[in-house]
């Protein structure tokens, strides 16, 4: 969770150089918007209104414009999420292979209770997502940046325990 108080800019020093390198790839500053938003989310875990305003200022576009773009793409978070963000595909191919059972298992073992909610210990947020492009390896699950395949309900408790304890795959 971002501490209340003054917003600390992200695009200073190393991050500023990173963005400047990215800007060289495109003829317009606006084209660096998606990459810039990824930098923000990787740094802070989510994209706040203040961060949108900073990105807007750096890329010389408006904050409202940035917000319109952020709200279009489902991978950008406009609110803080649990330490482990769990995305489970339930579109038809995975659905046929028991994806909804995997969802139920995750909701139970993380303590989230319902989709989109963060667990009481702040450890997990679980959501259903659309096709993750791993349909032959049902059910694929993303835990933060880790893309796991062939997840079945029986594998869930151990996975949740591993991520709850902070151990990476």
């Amino acid at each position, binding site marked *: 969770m971002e501490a209340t108080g003054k917003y600390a800019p992200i695009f200073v020093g190393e991050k500023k150089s990173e963005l400047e390198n990215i800007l060289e790839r495109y003829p317009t500053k606006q084209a660096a918007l998606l990459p810039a938003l990824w930098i923000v989310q990787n740094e802070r875990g989510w994209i706040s209104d203040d961060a949108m305003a900073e990105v807007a200022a750096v890329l010389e576009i408006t904050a*409202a414009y940035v917000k319109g773009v952020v709200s*279009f793409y*489902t991978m950008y978070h406009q609110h803080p999420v649990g330490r482990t963000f769990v995305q489970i595909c339930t579109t038809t191919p995975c659905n046929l292979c028991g994806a909804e059972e995997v969802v139920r298992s995750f909701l139970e073992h993380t303590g989230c209770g319902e989709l989109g909610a963060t667990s009481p210990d702040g450890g997990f947020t679980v959501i259903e997502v659309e096709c993750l492009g791993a349909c032959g390896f049902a059910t694929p699950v993303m835990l933060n940046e880790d893309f796991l395949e062939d997840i079945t309900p029986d594998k869930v408790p151990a996975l949740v325990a591993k991520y709850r304890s902070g151990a990476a795959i």
Partner: protein
Amino acid sequence: MAEQELVTVTIEGVEIQVPKGITILEAAKRAGVLIPHYCYHPGLPIAGVCRMCLVQVEGAPKLAIGCATQVADGQVVNVFVDEAEKARQSVLEFLLINHPLDCPICDQAGECELQDYVFQEGRARSRYGEYPKRFSPVEDFGGDVLYVPNRCILCTRCVRFMDHVAEESVLNVSERGDRAFIGIHPDAELDHPWAGNVVDLCPVGSLLSKDTLHKARAWELDKTPGICTSCSQGCNINLDTRNDVVVRLRPRSNDAVNRFFMCDHGRHSYRWFNRGDRIEAPLVKRGSTLVATDWDYAIAELATLIKGVRGKGIALVSPNTSNETLYLAKRLFANLDWHGVFRVERVDGDVPLNGVPNLALRRERAANVVGATSLGYQEAFEKAVETISDAALLLIVDDLLEGIEATILSQAENLIYLGTVLPDVARGAAVVLPTSNVAEEDGTLVNRDARVQRYLQAKAPPGMARPGWWILDEVLAELGDGTPLGSAGAVFEAMAASESGFSGLSYEKLGLRGEVLNQTPVATT
């Protein structure tokens, strides 16, 4: 100018020739056919999203959107044919599944394009059934604008206006799918000086003006063409009145002046049209007081006064006075050494609407500076005031005389006041005559680009107030100039006949688009 290549198209059975490259929708207008549409607007970039303008193009495998499809030579377009009507009917049905049945409480009712097209082409009943409609609370966008998300049909006209015409991207489309809505960043406000236009652009009652919220029903309003007098741009407007009260101003389209837009400052400057503290009867001085009388008496008294005056004369006029009034006022000074002056409020700078060339809220906050100048008036108000003591006749036309003391005014031999409101300092006038304001008369004004434009009477003047030109016309007739000219048009014709700046113009030909004076006006800013 090079000849434009023409193509022949047949729209709804009407064969017409149109310039190559225009869209089917624009071509259809020329064939007298209005293709139903929402997101398209001639003042905005094409979006092609509402899908309402689907028409059948013979030989094409699919329906085409008229707003974005260029005409091709030999094309045959059918608008009111089963396939296209079904498609448009379904668009309306889709729009209505979430759009609330708010007509009884919605400001747009009566001037709503959703109502209009549903009535024309929609289903009698929706098949949506008992599903809940999407609901979000009303939002205050800041400025004068309220956003009612439930009614929004996501035509994106407002977003495109702010992005491409106002060039301030303060509105966005947020989210995706049927969760989408028009959004604004929490730190931002819709307080751009031209933002009020989004309310006009919104085809439904989703963007509303707080100023006119729930004030009047659209069908109660009478609509009269006029010209905005808040600055020298001369935006064409419509005055919406109900029971002789001006309720709202809206822009009227004129490609040569303001395209489709007006600024918020002008838009909200209508309350003064309805002022209650007007002079309502002609007044003449008896002893030390002004006494109300009738027009015959007042005109006769003024004529007698004028007949006896010789020497220097000064006319202090408001730069919002019509050409007709200014012209006849000048003629009043025929036998005098005359000096006509005005003063103009100027602010720091223009407030342009960036996406439209030559359109701004001008720093010059008066509508007829060029007209006054063309008729021989000068911007030398202070200088003229210094010479009041020399004046045998001082005529004030609708200037509120701020900063002028009564003692100065009393130095003129004869003081005549023509105006809408009587300032205290002018109470020493010999004759005070009530005039109509610009909403209450016909007349013409000349904007900063030397365009003479007509405005029409939108409401009745209060009491016995009459147009300035009428008063002066009657006085001049009494003074033996002949029978009164009798109408604003006749005054204009007389003016065009004798004033070089207006020569060659005719009141009839001015129409509602105006015409440019045939001389370069003196630069006034």
